[in-house]
């Protein structure tokens, strides 16, 4: 994201009170649809231990490569005889938290830096922003790969790597909002009374962050899932036997000729999940941006 887009985004008219989220969900159809879809996915992730017909880790070599609609295995089995449907359902438990954690790392890390940078100004701001520039200039996927190579392959390190890549984005966003707020009357007034910075942050900064952040978080979450799937596809993310969609595509790609389902179903699962996050982000952005109102 270039400087210009951030500045334009930050110039949205501010709401002093955040729009009630539920109100938003109810009143805008696209947001409703997206939220429902996402809610369904979260439900699947939460309930997968209960609704899965089999243990996703149960190895059964004599039953491998069963086609879909085989007795007891709705989607068939994979190369070690594990039930595909169960693995797909459990995959949601892996992917959704990944999105959550990665975005949280980016948001909290980047947000803190942005806040400090915007609030402190001067040399601190200069240095921090140059660090963020450096992080942004570093090609993202290559950075993630290098980080995981350094830390060791695995889901946890993939989440951290993706989060780190997202940090500068949130740093800039939060900093831009802080910079807009700083000269405003009510802030100056509150500060002159001697109110603590923490109070300022909680009562004034965070409510004004909700709008731009919500949109960005939804889109980041979708991106984080794609990034994690990519890393897993390269063998750097979730390791077997953890059922992870990206890694299932990696193994399944080898079997496209005899058993295309092994790669296609996880691919569809990822697409649907990312789609719902993107749909939500887009819908929220449209809903919150007055310029694009019909």
């Amino acid at each position: 994201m270039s400087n210009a887009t951030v500045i334009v985004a930050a110039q949205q008219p501010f709401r002093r009170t955040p729009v009630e989220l539920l109100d938003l969900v109810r009143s805008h159809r696209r947001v409703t649809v997206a939220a429902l879809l996402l809610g369904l996915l979260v439900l699947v992730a939460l309930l997968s231990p209960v609704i899965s017909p089999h243990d996703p880790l149960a190895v059964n070599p004599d039953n491998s490569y069963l086609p879909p609609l085989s007795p007891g295995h709705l989607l068939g089995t994979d190369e070690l005889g594990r039930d595909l449907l169960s693995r797909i359902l459990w995959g949601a438990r892996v992917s959704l938290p990944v999105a959550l954690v990665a975005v949280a790392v980016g948001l909290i890390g980047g947000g803190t830096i942005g806040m400090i940078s915007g609030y402190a100004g001067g040399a601190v701001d200069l240095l921090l922003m140059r660090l963020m520039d450096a992080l942004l200039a570093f090609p993202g996927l290559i950075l993630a790969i290098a980080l995981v190579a350094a830390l060791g392959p695995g889901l946890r390190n993939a989440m951290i790597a993706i989060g780190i890549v997202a940090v500068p984005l949130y740093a800039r966003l939060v900093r831009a909002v802080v910079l807009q707020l700083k000269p405003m009357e009510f802030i100056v007034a509150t500060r002159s009374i001697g109110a603590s910075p923490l109070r300022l942050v909680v009562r004034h900064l965070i409510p004004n962050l909700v709008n731009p952040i919500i949109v960005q978080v939804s889109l980041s979450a979708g991106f984080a899932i794609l990034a994690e799937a990519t890393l897993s596809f390269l063998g750097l993310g979730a390791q077997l036997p953890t059922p992870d969609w990206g890694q299932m595509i990696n193994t399944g790609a080898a079997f496209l000729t005899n058993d295309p389902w092994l790669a296609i179903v996880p691919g569809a699962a990822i697409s649907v999940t990312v789609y719902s996050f993107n749909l939500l982000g887009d819908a929220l952005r449209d809903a919150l941006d007055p310029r694009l109102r019909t």
Partner: protein
Amino acid sequence: MTAYILRRLLLMVPVAFLVTVGVFMLIHLSPGDPALVILGEDRTPQAIAAIHQQLGLDQPLYVQYGIWLGHIVHGDWGRSITTHEPVAAAITERLPATLELGIVALVWSLLVAIPLGTIAAVRRGSLTDQVVTGITVAGVSIPNFFIGIVLIFVLSVTLRLFPFGGYVPLLQNPLESLRHVALPAIALGTAGAAINMRFTRSSMIEVLNLDYIRTAWAKGASWRRVVFVHALKNALIPVVTIVGIQIGGIIEGAVVTETVFTWPGVGRLAVESIFNRDYTVVQGIVLLAAFSYMLANLLVDVAYAWLDPRISYA
């Protein structure tokens, strides 16, 4: 404005410096020994020690960094640890392949994005708009390596319509070249198509609401003339800027696609060099990618400021 540009250009240097420090530390502190990767089955303790000494790997990190930096400043990008090929040559050898892939992908994405974005903007709010938007959001949601795999399987292996892998330089044989780059470019460009489409649409909507467009309507100009001659021209300007950023990120974008299609580009070289702990090559590629990204961003910001009076960099 000039002051702003100069300031940005000057700032690129320390930022690039930070990037190189970052990548240097990251890859040197990664576990794994390039000497072992090089020696493969011929590892003897003497050979390992010899390589460490040859490559200066037995020196403290800051010394190694200093040496590398000193060379870079003089234009010497060093040699690949695994092949001894000059890093600059290794990159320039593979750059045309990546550029061809990235640019064809971009062209594909624009060919899809501009018409669809225009239609969606003109028929805003209608079913067409919703469907088109829905399709393009789908395009950015499907992992591009998955698109790649499916394309290979269907169009290359099963239907034999396209060759599998292999790069033919554009200047050598344009038609063959396009045949070989088609599948990877489609896989890579689909996500970009969605982004560019969104941008085209929102930009078109803004322009279509502007006074002078309404005036043209009022004067009775034909629909087609209004849209294509007046609106599109102006709506595309911001799109060009976002395209500029995509060009700046060409190396990074190609990484996965090049891996799936075994395309001999810079992205794949970067990934393999990380796995091989080929420090010099990774450092060189990251430096190049960082500079191209910063330069593209600067150009985009300048273009924006020039076009949009709300932005000022005073």
